[in-house]
């Protein structure tokens, strides 16, 4: 018989997937920084900074931010569950986490707007 697929297990699977993707990004981040900085220093740093602020990279940034946000908000919810909160009221925990995530996403979109209209 297959594992039971419940709300909780879906949320958790996605938590793990986002975690692994973020770990992958960490290495990408370090690799980019070290390959740019160590041989040449400031000149290349600024040149690369100019490249990665173009729209396709910004979209990637946004995706990364979404992954981080999901992982952070759900992780916080899990920590609260470990402290005994939102167990009998799991739905409230999930909806609350979603609401917090959406608010932060809204703030983020507002902060990014200047880049879009630039």
């Amino acid at each position, binding site marked *: 018989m297959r594992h039971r697929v*419940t709300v909780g297990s879906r949320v958790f699977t996605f938590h793990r997937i986002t975690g692994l993707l973020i770990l992958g990004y960490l290495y990408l981040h370090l690799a980019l920084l070290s390959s740019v900085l160590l041989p040449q220093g400031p000149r290349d740093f600024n040149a690369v900074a100019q490249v990665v602020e173009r729209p396709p990279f910004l979209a990637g940034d946004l995706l990364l931010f979404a992954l981080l946000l999901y992982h952070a908000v759900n992780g916080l919810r899990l920590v609260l569950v*470990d402290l*005994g909160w939102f167990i009998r009221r799991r739905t409230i925990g999930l909806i609350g986490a979603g609401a917090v995530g959406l608010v932060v996403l809204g703030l983020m979109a507002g902060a990014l707007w200047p880049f879009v209209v630039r």
Partner: protein
Amino acid sequence: MAKTVTVVIDRSDAGAQRRFEVPVGRRETVLDALFYIQNDLDPTLSFRCACRVGMCGSCGILVNGGERLACRTALEPLGPVVELAPLRYFPRVKDLVVDFSAFYSRYRAVAPYLKPRPAVVDPVVAPPGSGLREEIDLGLECISCGLCLSACDVVGQVPEFLGPAALNRAYNLVADVRDAADAERLEVVGDRRRGVWQCHSHMSCVEVCPKGLAPTRAIAHLRRKLVAQAFFGRRPRPVPSQQRFAEGAR
């Protein structure tokens, strides 16, 4: 003509009949359908039950993929086709009957019975508002139906995991001031491989428990106790005696 439902049963004998047309009214349960099939259509069908009123915990099966007590699940709202299968992760004996030994060996590992402290004077008085009784009430009523174990996908991945029912029982005894064996129980439930650390807090066990218990809560509290114990040592528990509680209540 009476309304019928198609009941599809996962049989252990590949050659056995799997699909049955069962007449249904508003009051029939899944267990009633199983009895109808066994009495009128196929006497070789095996399933388990005893009390028929959700007390004994022997009729747990998968109904359309979800863990349910057959005797507490109404048939009609399930739609025209109902699929029945044995619980997950339990070895099958026959048809819907599974072997519960792994469930009980988990229970046994946590010493699921009270080991009273010598100083306890019976009956222990838990005054209203002391919280002693309320804490335990939240985890009582387990009928060891095994639905939580079948719903727990950590059990599916880490077969040694003690699982929701046994950990819930362990916490009940750890929280019981009359009990003397908290240290040895905490040692078992704190084990890295089979203990509380494996739980992912999916809360699937809370979702399926027919008694509305929350094993995830018990696991969270056990973890807290283990962390507190590792850092602050073991505080001797107050000796529960009528004298003491009478003073506390005053």
